[in-house]
Structure formats: C-alpha cells, structure tokens
C-alpha cells in the first residue's frame, strides 16, 4: 500500500476510493463475494429498483456484439419493499456504500421510490432517466432536458440523500441534459447508460433479443462514453461518475483524465469477476508511478 490518497468526495458523498460497480451488472454486491473483497469497493450501484416487483423481459435477454454486448433485461427486480426488507440488511454487513438505482415510468414513481428509500440508510440514490416515460408516449426521460429535470426535482423534494442522476447517451447534446439536471438539484451525475442497439440472427431472420432492441455496453462504447464525460465535465460543476466500457486500470484512468471524479465498472465484471480489484490497484499504481498524491489531482487533466 502506498500513501496515495484514494478518497473521493462527490459533493458530500464520501467514497473510500473511486471504484464503483455499475447498476445491473453487479447484482446487490453479494453475488461477487467469492471474487472480490467487497469491503474494498468504493460503492455498489444495485440493480435498477422499481416500486413494484418486475418479471422483466422474455429471453434471450443478451447478445454478444463486437467488443460489446446488448442487454434487454427489462428491469427484473423484486421491488423496493423487498429490497428494503430482505436485501439492504445483507449489504450493510459490508463497508461499501450502497447506492440504489431507481427507475420509474412516471415522475410520481420516482418520487415514491425516493420517499421509501429516504431514511433506509442507503448511501445515495442513482436516478436512472433512461426509462421510457409512459405518460409522454414512451420517450425516455433522459432525452429531453425539461423531462429529466422534472424527475430530479420530484426526487429532490422527497429526500436529502445524495442524488446521482444517470444520463442516457442516446441524445444529440449530452451537455444540455447535464445542465438541466444540475439546475434541478442533482448532487452528482453518472454517465453513460447503454446505447440503444440491435442484432439480427440471419438464419432466423429476426432480432436475437426477445425484446428486439437492447442496450449496448462494453469496450465498444468506451469512446462515446469518454467523449461525453469530457463534454459534461466542462459544462457542469457537479462531480461525475464515469462509465462505459471500462475494462482495466488504463481505461479507468482515461475517464479520470477526461473529468470523472469516480468510475463505475459494468460489463467488465462479467468478463473478469475480479476486475474491480485489479482496476483499484492499477489506478493506485498509475498515481504512484506518475508522482501523484491523490486521485483528485488527475481528474480532468486531459481537458485543455
């Protein structure tokens, strides 16, 4: 262990280090206990949680693509009440911060979720605005600045927990959304969620996924994610959690240099279940080798 300070302060949300795991890719944390020293993780963003339990989509739910994968899980989850009663107590035995990723079809869904989670002892809420707004014709909340801001404001009213708003990359101007959710009171912005994609089975002549379309993640999307972090870092003042294709420490450092204060690991956990610990060690090595005393010092260094 070096003397490098790995601590991260995300607008009041304190993490032991910048390494977190992305929602939907790390379960509730415990699923990885055989591979990872969970106590060493900065935070775990748990699976997208909804008001009521959800069965999710039919299978196949995933498809492999070049250096990436598509998923259409359909937010299968046991619902917020079950989470609070049965899962949260389990995760509390570990040192990592539990951040609950919340999803809704209406602004009211998000507000109710926030109020239920408010005093539960979770570390923060991550608002997933990639969900379709059923009241507005299914257009994702995250594609319109005003709609995105509406969700954040509604959640803000229900809780004093640190709020992380997770942006969808399927937009023309990511900075417009980022500015809107900053104004609406988010404490942190995380980005990016998956790119909407599709794969067709040429023998069956139909989409591979039962849901037809799915979210593209993995190394393939990293350049888009780095670009968006770089743009958003210059547009807002709130801290950022960067993600999208991070597979090793070099990738993680790339996001820090682009302006992310912390990073999140998604698909790479599937490829190598031990990757989060390797990335944590690798970030530290990079800092030591290059003579830095803290993670902070390299955040946004590539922005000129």
């Amino acid at each position, binding site marked *: 262990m070096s003397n490098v300070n790995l601590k991260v302060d995300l607008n009041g949300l304190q993490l032991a280090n910048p390494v977190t795991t992305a929602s939907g890719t790390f379960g509730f944390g415990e699923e990885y206990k055989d591979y990872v020293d969970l106590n060493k993780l900065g935070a775990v963003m748990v699976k997208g949680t909804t008001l009521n339990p959800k069965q999710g989509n039919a299978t196949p739910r995933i498809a*492999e693509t*070049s*250096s990436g994968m598509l998923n259409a899980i359909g937010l*299968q989850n046991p619902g917020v009440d079950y989470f609070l009663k049965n899962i949260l107590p389990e995760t509390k035995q570990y040192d990592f911060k539990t951040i609950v990723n919340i999803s809704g079809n209406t602004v009211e869904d998000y507000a109710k979720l926030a109020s239920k989670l408010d005093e539960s002892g979770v570390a923060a809420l991550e608002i997933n605005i990639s969900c379709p707004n059923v009241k507005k014709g299914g257009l994702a909340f995250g594609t319109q600045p005003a709609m995105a801001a509406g969700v954040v404001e509604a959640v803000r009213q229900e809780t004093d927990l640190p709020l992380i708003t997770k942006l969808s990359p399927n937009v023309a101007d990511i900075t417009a959304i980022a500015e809107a959710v900053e104004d609406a009171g988010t404490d942190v912005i995380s980005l990016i969620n998956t790119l909407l994609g599709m794969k067709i089975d040429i023998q069956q002549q139909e989409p591979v996924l039962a849901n037809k379309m799915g979210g593209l993640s993995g190394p393939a999307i990293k350049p888009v994610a780095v670009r968006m972090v770089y743009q958003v870092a210059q547009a807002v003042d709130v801290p950022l959690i960067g993600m999208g294709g991070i597979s090793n420490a070099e990738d993680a450092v790339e996001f820090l240099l682009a302006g992310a204060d912390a990073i999140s690991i998604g698909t790479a956990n599937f490829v190598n279940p031990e990757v989060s610990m390797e990335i944590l060690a690798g970030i530290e090595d990079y800092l030591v080798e290059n003579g830095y005393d803290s993670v902070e010092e390299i955040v946004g260094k590539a922005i000129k």
Partner: protein
Amino acid sequence: MPERSIRNIVSQKEICPGHYQMVIDAPEIAAEAEMGQFLHLKWAAETNSDPLLRRPISFNEIDREHGQLIIVYRVIGRGTKLLSTLEAGDKIDLMGPLGTGFSIPEEKNNFLVVGGGMGIAPLLDLVENLLVADKEVTVLLGAEKKEQLLNLEQYQELNVNLKTATMDGSSGYQGFVTDLLADLTAIEYVYTCGPEVMMATVQEWAQENEIAGQASLEERMGCGTGACLSCVCKIKVETESGWEYQKTCTTGPIFALNEVIFDE
C-alpha cells in the same frame, strides 16, 4: 466456493467432427465440483476484447484422482471456435464450479437418463455416480448420426441398459430418442439434458407417468454469478402468475423437471 483462475490445458482433441474434448488441470476445483455443474470459460489472451463474453460449458467428467476437469463441447460460433484452437500447455481462464449439481434421491432405485445432442456430454458423470450408488440405470441417447453420440464407447462400457436413437439410423433406433420412452417400465426417476423440445417431451412423459426428475437447462449467460439476470428460465412457483424467472447460473442449471416451463 467458486473461483476464477487461469489454468493449464492438459490436452485437447477433436473427438468427432466439430466436437472437442478438453482436459484442464485444476485439482482444487475437481475436489469440490459436482456432476451437473459448469465452468464459465474464456481463452486467456488479455489483449483483445472480441469476442467479449465467457462461454458456459458443463463438466463431462470430474477426475478427482488426477485433479482434472474434462469438458466436451461442440463448435457453434466464434467462442467455441477459439476454444478449439487451444492446445496442451496453453492457458485457459475459468470461473467455477458454478451452479447447482444433479442430486440422487436415495430412496429410488430405477433411474432413467435421457440425453440428446450435446446434452449427452454432461450426463456421463451422473451415470457413473448412479452406478457407484448402486442404482439400476437406463440410458437413452439421441443424435443426428452415430458419430455425434458423444462418449458412446464410455457409455457402452458401463453396466447400464443403453439404447440409442439417430435421425439417420446409423446407430440404434431411427428417429427421435423420445420415441423410445414408450417402451420403458418401472422407471422411478428421470434426468434429462438436451434440446428443449426433447426435454419438453420427456417432461410430458414423466408427468403422465408421475415420475419426478431433473433437467439441465441452457440459457445465454453474462456474469455466471447471479448478478446480471440474463440467464433466467421460467420456473413454476405458487404465485399469482404461476411462474417466475429464476437464474440458470445459480439456481440452475439443474432444476426439478416438473417445475420447468418449456415455452414454444
């Protein structure tokens, strides 16, 4: 407890066109693994990210004595193609042992094992264990043609009532392996692994004859740890809808035969 490690390949050979047997040196895993469980594999080259995901492959045999894991697989796409290029001495990156294994109900004596296509491979270890437990075993194996009846010679050496079925008639009965179910009597318990339609037919037969059993399922997998929810299958439960999605990678791949809902 499952682990992730990088292991040595002891041998790899093509056992019939497009089908490979790989032997992996992994004493700790062999000591712990159970029949019916599986490995989540990746070629160990660290320099590229395509293909990206691991590939799940069941144990064909667990050789505790030599500390070796034996898998048998068919080349389907890019991942299994890459696996097939590995040679003795190369490294392989694995997670395992994963999932639930087959269990043998002590009180039953007369067992049936039905395997089709690649589904034959994961059953060999089970059959050997049934014999060790002193059970009567009937084995039905089906495939397109004789050479695809994997492990046939090994099955023939075992003290089981073995019948085969091939679509081209090159071994045993010509037609579906499930056609052979009609002739069976006195079976108390059934295991099956293979194409969904085959397992669905076995399930129907088992229900008609009030026979319990276990099935080994396949679904596309991401994590292998129970985290990603990609590998779910429909399992009957006593809720309103009558079923729920359960994870093939952790709750399965072995499920009670009568609880599985085979769609289509």
